[in-house]
């Protein structure tokens, strides 16, 4: 039996200021080989869960395992993470960023990255600071998706980009991931992402509201994921 890609047991994260609860007693298990949508409105706990998975935050209580490992260097080796913001050094050239990823991640496939870069017409000699916001995000996505990771964790990958760029990002995610790997996509733009999802996790105020396959939602509730989302999170 293969180890789940993610296991959360009684996971709780509070933020010290104002006693705000990021996550509360989350129980979640995600299998391998799926594209999972982490759906919820702003402030629901999506980014908190992602930061716990990637080791950027520590939980107050509970346990979290990624590919069977406690969060640490071993789990980080198998996770390919795309944050919401630009996390690269703006003064660096693209080719040097490829060198960096190649140095630290044995699963980074440089040829794949260079092919994707070439298709976008971006020169490896360009510095990030000379690029538009959308192009920077594409470079980040290329770096992340050029790894043969077991778990891709993408935080709001299509927010703030034009519809054409969204299509490109989703197509890149689908065509470059290892079929045995899992992808966790957080978003509140359900309509755009629904066609690519296998499963959804809906989160509200730090608590899991629903975990289901996309097909399961259609069969059980007779509606799309987008409609389900609107129902679960209506104001």
């Amino acid at each position: 039996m293969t180890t789940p890609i993610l296991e959360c047991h009684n996971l709780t994260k509070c933020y010290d200021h104002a006693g705000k609860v990021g996550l509360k007693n989350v129980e979640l298990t995600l299998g391998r080989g799926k594209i999972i949508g982490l759906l919820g409105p702003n402030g629901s706990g999506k980014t908190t869960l992602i930061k716990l998975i990637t080791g950027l935050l520590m939980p107050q209580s509970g346990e979290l395992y990624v590919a069977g490992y406690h969060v640490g260097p071993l789990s980080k080796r198998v996770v390919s993470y795309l944050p919401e913001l630009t996390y690269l050094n703006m003064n660096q050239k693209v080719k040097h960023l490829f060198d960096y990823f190649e140095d630290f991640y044995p699963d980074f496939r440089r040829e794949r990255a260079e092919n994707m870069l070439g298709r976008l017409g971006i020169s490896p000699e360009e510095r990030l600071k000379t690029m538009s916001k959308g192009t920077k995000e594409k470079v980040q996505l290329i770096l992340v998706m050029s790894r043969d990771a077991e778990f891709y964790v993408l935080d709001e990958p299509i927010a703030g980009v034009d519809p054409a760029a969204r299509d490109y990002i989703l197509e890149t995610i689908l065509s470059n991931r290892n079929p045995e790997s899992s992808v966790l996509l957080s978003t509140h733009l359900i309509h755009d992402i629904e066609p690519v999802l296998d499963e959804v996790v809906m989160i509200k105020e730090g608590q899991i509201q629903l975990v289901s396959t996309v097909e399961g939602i259609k069969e059980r509730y007779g509606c799309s994921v987008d409609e389900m989302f609107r129902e679960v999170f209506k104001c």
Partner: protein
Amino acid sequence: MLGKLIKYDLKANRNLFLLMYGILLASALGTRVVISDVVQELEGYSNVGLVAAFLMMSYMVALVTVSTMGYVLVIRRFYHNLFGSEGYLSFTLPVTAAQHFIAKTLSGLIWLFGSMMVQIISLLILFSGVFSRDMFGENMDMLIELYEPMINGQDLILQLVLAILNSVVSLMMIYFAVCLGQMARRRRILTAVICYFGMSFIFSMIEGVVTEAFITMDIYALESLIHYDVGYYLMNVLLVVLKMIIFGGGSILIMQKKLNLE
């Protein structure tokens, strides 16, 4: 992985450091060339004197800049790479917080010691062959007589080792202050500065008390400038080790448990 982290930390500031070193050494060389002309024409004013004064001032500015900017660049690298937006990449690399801290400390020390060596080289360039013992008269003889035992004795080695260890600890204290500062919700840099001065004050008090309580020699005697007893060295080494544990361990603990990226 540690080696790779150090490599990229050194590369990050390489261009700026090499530029500063180049300017300093060029300034030293230029000033040296002009000064040797001035020394030969001490009897009268010439335009060379004004140029020499300007170049000497430029050299002094470059010398101070290398010291100051060296620390600024090293600290800036620590802050931006770990607690700025780059922290989202740094802390998701398959490395431990301890490896991050050690890499930043070692790379920072390499640049700071490198800066010190370049400054010494620039001074040697500037003053070699220009000034002679005869120019200072009997004062030079007295200075040499006073410091000769230190230059020739084991105290120099012990004092050098202590100076190096204190340099390491100084940098670790700055890093610890930055780690403490990033825990604040707002005004992180100000918080870090306050923490730094607070810790400096506290440790100065502790060292003062320890020195008074445990060191029996007369530290105000002139001989103490050139020869300390074993107790003094032992106590200082113990204090250095204690500081390393506090600053290093504290920084790593904060990075592991209390990371608060913007």
